[in-house]
């Protein structure tokens, strides 16, 4: 089966398959689908019919587990995709403790470092993934361009491959067995209220500026918050890290000492844990500078309140998520999962994610699904020629707007560290809880 699929001449398979589908569906929009979903073809007829009965259960965080994707899967591929959106912690828990409850896991890379060694997932065969060559190199070798430096932390490429088909040991460099297919990623920085901070913000250390006493916030998810704290401490020149993403006990102590002192001095107004909380803190003016996520900034702006996702000179803290296949999947369902993943990389989803301000794994195919103006705005950092619409069709940015932080190269090229799971994870979490309780 695998041989036929991978061995069959790609172009021939694609054309026949698509024209058959086009004929069947007779939709005008099929032109876009035709380019994008070359993945759906190459099935023997029986399977193409059976696949309609397949249901795949996917779960993951709210950022990428969108019903629009499930609807489009039904339309393009014919099978049913059930989406469950949870928060990061619940995702990690469910991935490890209830591996039979899902078929496809959309998990973050730093969580992958915990989940994959638990043996609940199966690596993916790279040769079955059509657009593998076009995946952004960050996820393969850690470098955006051949010259760029590898960022600290749990960089996706360090947990992106395992040594063999049944291995749970991460490989040092790319192999034929991939743990996750990158779906969504972004570079995070501080969000500010430019109308209230009253001065330009240029460094992570501004989070602890006494001028913002009682008006700052940081997120209380230890694995992510500690990285923000590290960016702050490093920018202040207080702590020098060997690797921010894998701190020593001493580095953890120093970092959290600085944060605890700031907390005791009344620097923070609140800690947030969910997307909504961060939006509310910012839009109500309780907080004017905080670690934030880009769609949360967009949500504040959507209320007509000024909010900027401020690029900082020390660079960004990045995160990424990807699709993995549960261990128990086999046969037709496994094939369907591969079809789905190939479809995922074929452009439609990529464009959808890019339009939300995130980035997709394969940029070439996403570009085909975006207008030149959209592409120029989101990916090249150019001023929008027309109004920029969200995937749901709402106006996100007026014509003339420029994206915070500029182009894809500027943003992802300036990643200083990735969300991480450290060797001293358990110690770090204990210390973090002490900080929060202090």
């Amino acid at each position, binding site marked *: 089966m695998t041989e036929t699929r991978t061995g069959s001449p790609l172009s021939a398979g694609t054309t026949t398959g698509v024209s058959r589908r086009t004929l069947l569906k007779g939709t005008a929009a099929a032109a876009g689908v035709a380019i994008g979903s070359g993945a759906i073809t190459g099935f023997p007829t029986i399977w193409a019919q059976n696949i309609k009965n397949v249901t795949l259960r996917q779960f993951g965080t709210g950022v990428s587990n969108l019903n629009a994707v499930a609807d489009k899967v039904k339309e393009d591929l014919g099978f049913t995709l059930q989406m469950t959106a949870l928060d990061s*912690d*619940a995702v*990690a*828990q469910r991935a*490890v*403790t209830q591996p039979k409850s899902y078929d496809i896991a959309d998990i973050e890379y730093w969580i992958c470092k*915990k*989940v994959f*060694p*638990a043996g609940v997932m199966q690596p993916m065969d790279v040769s079955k993934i059509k657009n593998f060559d076009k995946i952004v190199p960050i996820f393969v070798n850690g470098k955006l361009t051949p010259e760029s430096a590898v960022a600290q932390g749990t960089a996706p490429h360090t947990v992106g491959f395992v040594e063999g088909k049944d291995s749970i040991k991460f490989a040092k460099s790319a192999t034929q067995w991939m743990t996750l297919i990158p779906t969504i990623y972004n570079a995070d920085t501080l969000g500010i209220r430019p109308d209230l901070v009253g001065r330009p913000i240029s460094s992570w250390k501004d989070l602890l500026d006494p001028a913002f006493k*009682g008006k700052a*916030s940081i997120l*209380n998810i*230890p694995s992510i918050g500690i990285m923000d704290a590290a960016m702050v401490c490093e920018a202040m020149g207080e702590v020098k890290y060997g690797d921010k993403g894998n701190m020593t006990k001493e580095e953890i102590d120093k970092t959290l000492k600085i944060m605890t002192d700031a*907390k005791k001095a009344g620097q*923070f*107004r*609140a*800690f*947030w*844990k969910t997307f909504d909380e961060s939006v*509310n*803190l910012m839009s*109500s*003016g*309780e907080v004017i500078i905080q670690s934030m996520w880009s769609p949360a900034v967009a949500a504040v702006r959507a209320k007509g309140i000024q909010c900027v996702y401020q690029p900082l000179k020390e660079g960004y803290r990045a995160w990424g998520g990807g699709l993995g296949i549960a261990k128990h999947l086999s046969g037709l369902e496994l094939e369907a999962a591969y079809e789905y993943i190939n479809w995922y990389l074929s452009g439609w989803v990529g464009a959808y994610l890019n339009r939300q301000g995130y980035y997709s794994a394969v940029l070439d195919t996403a570009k085909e699904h975006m207008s030149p103006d959209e592409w120029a705005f989101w990916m090249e950092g150019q001023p929008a020629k027309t109004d920029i619409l969200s995937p749901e069709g709402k106006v996100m940015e007026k014509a003339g707007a420029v994206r915070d932080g500029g182009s894809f190269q500027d943003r992802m090229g300036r990643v200083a560290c990735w969300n991480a*799971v450290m060797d001293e*994870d*358990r110690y770090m*979490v*204990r210390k973090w*809880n*002490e900080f*929060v*309780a*202090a």
Partner: protein
Amino acid sequence: MTVSAVPSEASSASAAPRGGGVRRSVLRRVAPYLQAGPLALALLVFLLIPILTIVAVSFWDYDSIRIYPDFVLTNYEELLTSPVTWKTYLNTVKFAALTWVITLLIGFTVAYFLAFHVQSTTWQMVLFLVCTIPFWTSNIIRMISWIPFLGRNGLLNSGLISAGLIDQPLEFLLFSDFAVVLAFVHLYALFMVVPIFNSMMRIDRALVEAARDGGASAAQVVWNVILPLAKPGIAIGSIFVVTLVMGDFITVRLMSGGQSASIGLMIANEISLLQYPAAAANAVVLLAVVLIMVVAMLRIVDIRKEL
């Protein structure tokens, strides 16, 4: 017809009373067990077994991915030697104590008003039902609605500023211990009102009259007659409030802006980081602390005797 039937039955009945008696006495002995059976079974399955599981897991080992059946004391060691634990317990007990005092004052006053000031039973019931109206919306909604009210640019602050009472927004209103206790009182005052009202309604009015006739002032009547007789209600209400506050994790997080800690929050954090054994150890300690508190309260007031 009936007459002739009697002897024939009587002859066969000579053996029956003995058999029936045995059966009846067996039934009589078994009946209480049968009656208690369903509850005992439910408690066993839904309370005892889970608690025993938690106790067992609290001795297991874990890393960031899995838990390992084992017998280690590290979980308790890490818990009890950590200054955070003590600080958090102190903080939680502080919240519990403050909430207890305030809800007790409110609960006693409201119950006293309902039981002794309102004369008609109909009005008593109507007003009592009015007290339960807040329970028509969920806890979380009632809690969250405080946030826009108390916030820096919230209703209260903007009201005070426009009334000229203050120049700067009051910062302590939201994301502070004040906000946490306020929310607790708001959420749990009724748990105090109901049992106190209930025990006050059982007080024989003749006792109050007798005290008045004996020359007692209103305050003396409340202190020497009503308060001692309302003790079982106070004890029950206190148990409700204290156990609810000790176990709470969402109120503290939301109202303190995540800046205060509570035991419940600590456990929730540990669970979310897959540190089940640590969470279990914490839960066992919390259970022990709460049980000690409840036992202490029951020592002061013998509910069974008073009821």
